[in-house]
């Protein structure tokens, strides 16, 4: 699955940030934001991350914290703010129209790297 590719990108990005910090720092936690309107399964991502991290120096004890972002959109006809999802067939509950502009839920972002001085 493509979650392995995403896990690898996360570690690559984090590794270059760790290098920039320099010294003997080790990574404790990586925070990412993942919208629900993305094809990313958090369990698969975590599994891929855990199996890849030992290949990156300084990441042996690093955790991945993936924050899910619920999808929000403006509906197409009534300009109502709503949560498009499977249950409402992605349509606005108030007027029945479809998705206009998506406000959030399409994130796939690196947020932060938390490090600690190693020895």
């Amino acid at each position, binding site marked *: *699955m*493509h979650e392995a590719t995403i896990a690898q*990108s996360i570690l690559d990005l984090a590794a270059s940030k760790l290098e920039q910090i320099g010294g003997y720092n080790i990574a404790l936690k990586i925070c990412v934001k993942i919208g629900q*309107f993305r094809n990313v399964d958090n369990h698969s991502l975590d599994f891929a991350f855990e199996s890849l991290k030992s290949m990156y120096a300084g990441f042996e004890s690093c955790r991945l914290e993936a924050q899910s972002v619920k999808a929000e959109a403006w509906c197409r006809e009534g300009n109502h703010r709503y949560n498009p999802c499977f249950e409402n*067939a992605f349509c606005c509950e108030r007027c029945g129209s479809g998705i206009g502009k998506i406000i*959030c839920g399409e994130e796939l972002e*690196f947020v932060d790297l938390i490090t600690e001085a190693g020895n």
Partner: protein
Amino acid sequence: MHESSDEHILEHLLADNNELAQHNREHFDKSGTFSINFMSAPGAGKTSLIEKSLASLLKSYRCSVIEGDMVGDLDATRLRKSGADVFQIATGRACHLDAKMVARLLHEDKIEESDCLLIENVGNLVCPAEFPLGEHKRIVLLSITEGDDKPLKYPVIFRNCDVVLFTKCDLLPYVNFDLAAAKKYVEDLNPKVKTFSVSIKESGDFASWMQWLENELKDYKKA
């Protein structure tokens, strides 16, 4: 792409692929190659549709094909018979094509000389949606034997495409597939989408799909 509402733009996790896709696109535009990414579940009819589309495209345009398959080259062999230049990408364990795989073929003369490049992605409704290749148009095929609820189950790919083709429409009399419902699901997800009901047999509206494709190609070549 998504823009962060924070002051600083956060780094996209697939930035590498997206940058390379942009590079591929510039390359296509330099050589005047209109490129199309065909995506669907396995067996929805991508190879058959490309084969039939080539039969009429090749009358007026130079065409090449990139065939993405996890293993084997059956589809590539099949399409070579059409007379188009076909390049095979064996993706191995990867369940989608990515921009890097396509970039390796950019300097092939036959692709640079083409007016139109048709790319058959790996059969999968999930992963290909996350990996743009630099294509000008994204086409999703949904065969009517798969069920009309698929747009609701795979919303990402149906939202991020230009055209949805309902394929194998010759089988409509034999299958419970609510074409109007499927069309509504797709349009509710994607305001700019065009849909066509097609079949490689006589029935269906293949001519409208070809008309759309040839118009887009003509507009692209003019610009």
